[in-house]
């Protein structure tokens, strides 16, 4: 019984700290709420009654995520039609609604106490709040794309990511910025099919895509499995064209002992000198000049640094201090034009140089494109314009999307955007594609009407002709205008090949990764495949000849690894001193294993068959 009496007290917490207790928590929280709505308390105070704990939580601290709702009292929305009219006439504003307790912000905890409905006609007796707008169930990226309510949720997750990866006009001061990497679309267009949120966020002022004419058709198998076919004519005219900027920077670092780096063309005596040719593009100050065409291996910032270890400079002994070349070179596989060079100072008062390289990125095979409907694709073929399908007016699509991309993924929004975009392009108007603004069937009717007015099929189908044969396609082809983004995943930044190249010091095996000119791993499962096929020589080639093949001298008498003595000009075994030694080919990894076994005080003897 004692336990129950404690529970009868409803504790009140402010920002997690206990304040006191009340008898009836629910009534108390209602009272606080009332005070907030009347303006006695700040609108940033949130209160909730937690039934499970029989406690009242009042939160006023920062960092809570809050969302506005229209207050509903006694089954009636407080946002009346008169207020709506006044708001439309701009007699009142949002702040007025907040001040007068018509709209309030709820945090996650208070939301648990609220019963929210989407529409005014859904209001019941126990309803407490009304959603400001249906679109508020989506986030920004989703609301910035048209017709999200017609798409599968899985596609929503994808398109929200793609929008963030789109190349465009990411900032208006891009010329002054030194981002480590940036992408700039040459001719960004505002979307024909826009949304209220997109407009409100001022997105049309810095768009990140272009309106493509898209036909939903196959093209000789070139757009199978999420590949897309582009029109070369359109690409040549600037479709999807962009510039890639990359920044290289270096700093004149200071070291303990008064030594420091110096920007200059390194002397040929410097340790790690790359050869005269590599520095040929540098100006006198050791920094590259703007508008220089640079290729991989070219030095951008010439710099000399003191030796890494103190002993080196002492042991050198000579008058001239030993120095090390620490220049910045353009990475393998990259080329471009020096766009801009700046000198500046770091917070540590050291000289800093930043070099921005630009390189033109014309769409090519392997570049990634995506619509705002979660439909991504990789350009697989860029067709000469004369080979593209065309309609009777001579309109040639910019992009051919495989019709198989639609049914399984349930991206009806894509289809809707095609007709909407087409209607917008024909009528010269921006089409509103805001979520839930209109019923789908109504939309199709509206856009169909516009299409028919301009002499097109109301469902967007058209008779197309094959550019190669000139013959009419047997089926009508659905086409329209879709806003496409060129995403920043481009082959030219990812392509890498290796035939020979650097190896790891420890294992003598090829390095891994693009930055280190690495190879692709021939792993355990790949090995099993060759074993399973019985291709023993191919297996040996992959794992030995093309990897860490090593020639090792093995003592025939004791089985230890020997060496060649250059002074005596003989082979010697360091253990037994014998000179009968055979040269065998093994993997360096095995030699390493033998060394490691020896480090465990185990002597592995190699016995050889003749």
């Amino acid at each position, binding site marked *: 019984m004692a336990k129950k009496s404690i529970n009868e007290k409803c504790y009140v917490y402010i920002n997690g700290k206990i304040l006191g207790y009340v008898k009836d928590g629910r009534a108390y929280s209602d009272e606080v709420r009332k005070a907030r709505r009347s303006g006695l308390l700040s609108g940033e105070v949130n209160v909730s009654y937690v039934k499970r704990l029989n406690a009242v939580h009042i939160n006023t601290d920062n960092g809570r995520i809050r969302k506005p709702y229209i207050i509903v009292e006694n089954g009636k929305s407080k946002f009346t039609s008169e207020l709506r009219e006044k708001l439309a006439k701009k007699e009142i504003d949002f702040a007025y609604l907040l001040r007068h307790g018509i709209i309030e912000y709820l945090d996650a905890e208070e939301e648990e106490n609220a019963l929210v409905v989407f529409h005014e006609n859904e209001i019941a007796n126990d309803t407490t709040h009304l959603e400001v707008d249906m679109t508020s169930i989506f986030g920004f990226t989703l609301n910035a794309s048209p017709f999200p309510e017609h798409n599968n949720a899985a596609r929503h997750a994808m398109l929200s990511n793609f929008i963030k990866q789109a190349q465009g006009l990411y900032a208006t001061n891009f010329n002054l910025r030194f981002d480590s990497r940036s992408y700039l679309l040459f001719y960004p267009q505002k979307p024909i099919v826009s949304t209220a949120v997109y407009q409100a966020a001022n997105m049309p002022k810095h768009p990140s895509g272009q309106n493509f004419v898209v036909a939903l058709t196959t093209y000789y198998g070139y757009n199978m499995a999420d590949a897309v076919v582009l029109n070369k004519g359109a690409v040549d005219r600037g479709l999807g064209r962009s510039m890639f900027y990359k920044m290289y920077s270096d700093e004149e670092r200071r070291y303990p002992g008064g030594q420091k780096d110096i920007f200059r063309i390194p002397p040929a005596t410097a340790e790690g000198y790359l050869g005269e040719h590599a520095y040929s593009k540098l100006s006198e100050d050791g920094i590259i000049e703007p508008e220089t065409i640079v290729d991989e291996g070219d030095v951008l910032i010439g710099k000399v640094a003191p030796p890494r270890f103190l002993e080196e400079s002492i042991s050198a002994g000579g008058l001239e201090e030993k120095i090390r070349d620490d220049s910045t070179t353009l990475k393998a596989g990259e080329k471009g034009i020096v766009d801009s060079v700046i000198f500046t100072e770091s917070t540590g008062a050291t000289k800093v140089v930043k070099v921005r390289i630009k390189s033109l990125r014309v769409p090519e095979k392997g570049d990634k494109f995506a619509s705002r409907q979660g439909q991504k694709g990789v350009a697989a073929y860029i067709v000469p314009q004369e080979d593209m399908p065309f309609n009777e007016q001579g309109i040639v699509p910019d992009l051919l999307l495989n019709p198989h991309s639609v049914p399984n993924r349930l991206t009806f929004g894509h289809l809707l955007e095609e007709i909407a975009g087409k209607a917008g392009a024909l009528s010269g108007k921006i089409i509103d594609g805001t979520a839930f603004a209109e019923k789908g069937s109504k939309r199709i009717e509206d856009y169909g009407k516009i299409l028919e007015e301009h002499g097109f099929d109301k469902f967007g189908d058209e008779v197309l002709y094959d550019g190669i044969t000139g013959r009419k396609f047997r089926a009508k082809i659905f086409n329209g205008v879709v806003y496409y983004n060129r995403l920043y995943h481009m082959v030219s930044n990812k392509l890498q090949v290796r035939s020979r190249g650097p190896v790891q010091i420890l294992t003598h095996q090829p390095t891994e990764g693009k930055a280190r000119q690495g190879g692709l791993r021939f792993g355990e499962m790949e*090995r*099993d*495949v060759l*074993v*399973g*096929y*019985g*291709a*023993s*020589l191919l*297996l*040996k080639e992959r*794992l*030995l000849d093309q990897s*860490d*093949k090593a020639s090792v001298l093995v003592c025939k008498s004791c089985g230890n690894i020997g060496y060649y003595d250059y002074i005596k000009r003989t082979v010697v075994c360091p253990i037994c001193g014998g000179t009968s030694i055979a040269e065998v*080919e*093994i*993997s360096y*990894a*095995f030699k390493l*294993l033998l060394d490691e*076994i020896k480090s*465990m005080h*185990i*002597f592995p003897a190699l*016995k050889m068959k003749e």
Partner: protein
Amino acid sequence: MVKKEFLVTPGEPVGVIAAQSIGEPGTQMVLRSFHYAGVASSIATSGLPRLVEIVDTRKKPATPFSYIYLKGKAAKDFDTAEQIVKKISEVRVSDVARRVLENFSTGTITIKLDEQKMNANELTPRGIASKIEKLMKTESAVSGNAIQIKTHTKKAKEIRMMAVHISKLTVNGIENAGRAVIKQDKKTEEFYIVTNNSSVGQILQVDGVDTSRVYTNDIFEMYRTFGVEAARNTIAKELDIVLREQGINVDKRHLYILADAMTFSGGIKNVGRRGLSGEKESIFARAAYEETVKHLINAAAFGEKDDMRGVTENVLIGKQILLGTGTVSLAIKKEDLAKISEKKAKK
């Protein structure tokens, strides 16, 4: 008779192919382990857990079953089959008792029997009492549906332990046989018995049981009662059942290879550290798998020698493996051949 064309080529790495053929579809199985709700027959572990159970050679499966086929009249007649079920189906004291009461002051245990359950199993209180007397070597008194047992001790712990022991005693059927149920084969309309335990040895002695067709999914029980060959077949059959259930079509020969590898030594070896992989001949192959240091140190302590005949070892040192195209090697050098023909000519 096997036609020569159907034989596998010498040097074909059948083991690797079998491993890949089972392993690849196995990766899809993890994602697709679905369950039927409420169907009694599907309570058995299936999918990946069962597959793991088989290759790990667990001493007892999580859901043991045995299938007992009947011969003669019993196979066709339900009543006769039921008689056999009564002989087999295990009934414990706890199955027929309503309550088991301990009296610590007098040192007696009272078992109150459930009349309905007793009748269903055709048991009498007196029969149970005599059975308990025999097994526990004590005296008991029967009054109505209650049995009073003397414990000859006053220690509470001993009394409690005895009570627990008594309630676990088998009073009817075969010990550890489990609950037996009659089922009918849909095709042949033959009656057979399914039990939820794997103890099969004593069941073989029951009249009317077709001893040639008794089967359990417990590999070790099959091994104990019928021998390795049976265990090998059971492994292959159980693997087949698991894979088939998941809609995976793996050739039986791959499963036979695996089953053979597990049983060729005469016992049952699992696939792993304490079995096939851990008992490989090559030191390097064992060290490459698990417990590297242990194998190397033991090899050093006993002065072991690696013949370098397996795949792993040869891949490690970078030699051509002795499989597939590496199977063949030169038997006689050209010069030696000339010598031989010379010798022949002399003769």
